[in-house]
């Protein structure tokens, strides 16, 4: 049965830039395994003659014409940003010592 071990949760946490300590890892690997196992039950009914489905609604080619619509003002665009400077979003240092 699909289950997540501790090392996999630690790797996911690193990719997601989430800092987890040992206790978190123990607790979350248990909880996440339970979720993954529950979802894995789908595999029991997904036999090879059932095609994989990413889009259950039978629609395609939902397109729009290439026509310009009004954008937000710079002020509105930045209104919800925690920090802004010179009309741009200000974000924390991207590369730390790991780079």
């Amino acid at each position, binding site marked *: 049965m699909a289950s997540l071990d501790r090392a996999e949760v630690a790797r996911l946490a690193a*990719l*997601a*830039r989430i800092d987890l300590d040992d206790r978190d890892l123990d607790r979350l690997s248990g909880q996440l395994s339970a979720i993954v196992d529950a979802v894995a039950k789908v595999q029991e009914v997904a036999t090879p003659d059932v095609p994989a489905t*990413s*889009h259950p*609604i039978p*629609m*395609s*080619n*939902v*397109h*729009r*014409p*290439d*026509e*310009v*619509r*009004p*954008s*937000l*003002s*710079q002020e509105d*665009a*930045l209104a*919800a940003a925690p920090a802004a*400077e*010179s*009309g*741009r*979003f*200000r*974000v*924390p*240092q*991207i*590369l730390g010592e790991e*780079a």
Partner: protein
Amino acid sequence: MSATTDSYEEVLERFDPVFGIEVHVELNTQTKLFCGCANGFGAEPNTQVCPVCLGLPGSLPVTNAKAVESAIRLGLALGCSIRESSRFARKNYFYPDLAKDYQISQYDEPTCYDGAIDVILGDGTTVTIGIERAHIEEDAGKNTHVGGTGGIQGADYSLVDYNRGGVPLVEIVTKPVTGMGLRTAEVARAYVATIRDIVKALGISDGRMEQGSLRADVNLSLRPQAGPGGDQNEIPFGKRSETKNVNSLRAIEKAIHFEVARQGALLSAGKAVTQETRHWHEDTNSTTPGRSKEEADDYRYFPEPDLMPVEPTEEWIEELRATLPEHPGVIRARLQAEWGFADLEMRDVVAADAVGIIEDTVAAGASPQAARKWWMGELARIANETGTDLADLPVTPEDVAELQDLVASGALNDKLARQALAGTLAGEGSPRAVAEARGLAIVSDGAALESAVDAALASQPDVLAKIQDGKVQAAGAIVGAVMKATGGQADAALVRAIILRRAGVEG
């Protein structure tokens, strides 16, 4: 780092180079890929953004029909098959150049796949490059790093402008290209030039590498030569590097030279090549390691649930196929006939990657020969001296046509025209503006020229006698003196006529 670096040629005596190129083509649609924000360069930061391209909660993307059309036309021009049903996928990564924390791209179902394109080299040899796929994806925003040395490393923080975020791109991925030996770098360059010519002919992108609307990543690896009797195909590929940000044709060639030499030196010393992303540095013509390449799994691709599949009808595809332009090679042959260039002249023009430039210059009003003269003469010399591509010189085809017009109308002679051109290259404006600002103009004021001629004749009294003796070519010395006295601005033909009149000789 190894102290000894083997040359490109030495390395290729022992190794078979394998390369692949990813070209990102920025489409010139009016709007972005998934929202109605304008797709344009140079606006104030964050003024071409909306809830969709800022990834605000509750917003939903809707695909731009024109972007799909452009991608399909490009795929067809590259000989690709068009998938009956293709879908978008989310590529998840943590980097603030996209506000959503994922890029909408295509993964397992690209719209265009499995094509091939003929690339014609400078000497007329044709090489066929296989195309793995051409998929649609959105571009990212632009980061500005603050603090440190201005690079991402050591920066205190970064500022993000999302105007470019969500602009439509088509990424073209080649199949591995093998067996090109010493011509590897030349083939890679010619391939990118061909892609550039195709997107321009299709009218789907301006294809300007210097402005980032066409960007290339170069993958390169080396494997040992099979040797006599061996089967090269049985030798597995080596570990590859992926060099990012290679943004001129010249840099494509140089990056391949550098990577061949670097990897060859490592392998010869018994060391291993690391599979990694590397950055290209224009100033030093070298690459340095970037972050180690994340595995595809790390991007956690999954189908984009907010966008419906793209399912072009056979009818639509055939309609688009009918709009395809000729192959660049065919266009080239037609232009050569139109322009009346000799084979050798055309070959030089192709080798200098000046076909499109001359075409644009002719369209702006210059004669083909005049366009060729400027671009392959003075401008080629300057490009060579400064180590840049012709297309990257700060002068436009319109400037050159204007310059030629100034010469043809008699306002400037060749010498003055070169000065005007130098001004344009120095950023002083168009040739006409430079000529006005610097006061460059042929002096054809008769009285002024007559007194200059008289002064020159007075200082070289023997010349007049020689001319009257029938040695008309002696007038050249006086013409030279007058040119010198007028700072090269005299109308040479007029000066000559005045001299001959003074000597009482018919011109």
